[in-house]
């Protein structure tokens, strides 16, 4: 129960901050390259990495209880279910001639 007392050094925060800025520059740079349909995947990979940095270090989830970690992960897992089921519906509609796209 003493985990709440852990104090992150300023250096860690500044390192994460610098990494986030570099990743922002990287996002703009890779957006100008042509990877075909992979452009969005690359952009989202960087965005997910940045979000993970914020959640893990700035929001200090690494020091939270396992229960809190499960809640955090479950939130994003349900989001993936929303996208997965939603898109499997919309993308498969033309295959069987259902109205709507």
């Amino acid at each position, binding site marked *: 129960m*003493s985990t709440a007392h852990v104090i992150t050094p300023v250096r860690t925060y500044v390192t994460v901050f610098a990494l986030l*800025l570099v990743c922002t520059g990287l996002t703009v740079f890779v957006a100008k390259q042509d990877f075909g349909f992979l452009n969005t995947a690359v952009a989202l990979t960087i965005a997910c990495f940045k979000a993970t940095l914020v959640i893990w270090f700035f929001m200090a989830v690494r020091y939270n209880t396992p229960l809190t970690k499960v809640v955090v992960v479950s939130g994003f897992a349900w989001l993936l279910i929303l996208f997965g089921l939603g898109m499997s519906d919309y993308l498969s509609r033309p295959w069987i001639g259902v109205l709507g796209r």
Partner: protein
Amino acid sequence: MIGHSEHEHHPKLQHHFYSMEQQLEASILGMWVFLVTEVMFFGGLFMAYLVYRTAYPTAWAKSSEELNVYMGALNTAVLICSSLTMALAVRAAQVGSRRGQIVNLILTIIFGSTFLVVKYFEYAQKFEHHLVPGPHFGPSPPLPYGSQIFFALYFIMTGIHALHMVAGIVLMSVILVMAWRGRFSPAYYGPVEISGLYWHFVDIVWIFLFPLLYLLGFNQPPLG
């Protein structure tokens, strides 16, 4: 293991908690449950974005080109700065530095306000270029069919995000007053930590909005 008999009760300890640690962990958990509902709330908008982008890929790329990448990137950097000062404000509360809390909270509010000012200029530009969906939508040269849906989603998503920023700034002002009055200590800093979680969450939403809205214009899909 969990006992409170040997310690004196902290005045901020609610009677239904064993210890200050447990109280803090419970409030962090509660805040995260709220943030998960926020994830789902924004998730619905991202789902709408995904569906319409799949339906109108060309309109998406052409419309995205109309957004100002520099302003978007600047705002991303501004929000990252605000997240750093927010994290430092929480740290200041943890180590019991009243001055550190005040300075970092003020910086956070300034960065948050900067974001909104940049957003104001961006919105004004969209109005001038007739990019607001509705009867007056009519950019020149004209954009492909579906562009109004892109701009509708642009205004809804960034608008709701901006409202969250306003709420965050109000929240930080309250926390600033509390910090000013010396309400927080290394034993009791829950409100700073909890508000910080909210602030970082709003930053995360922008981390996804920036590439998905602003950066599609560089590579046009085939069959223009």
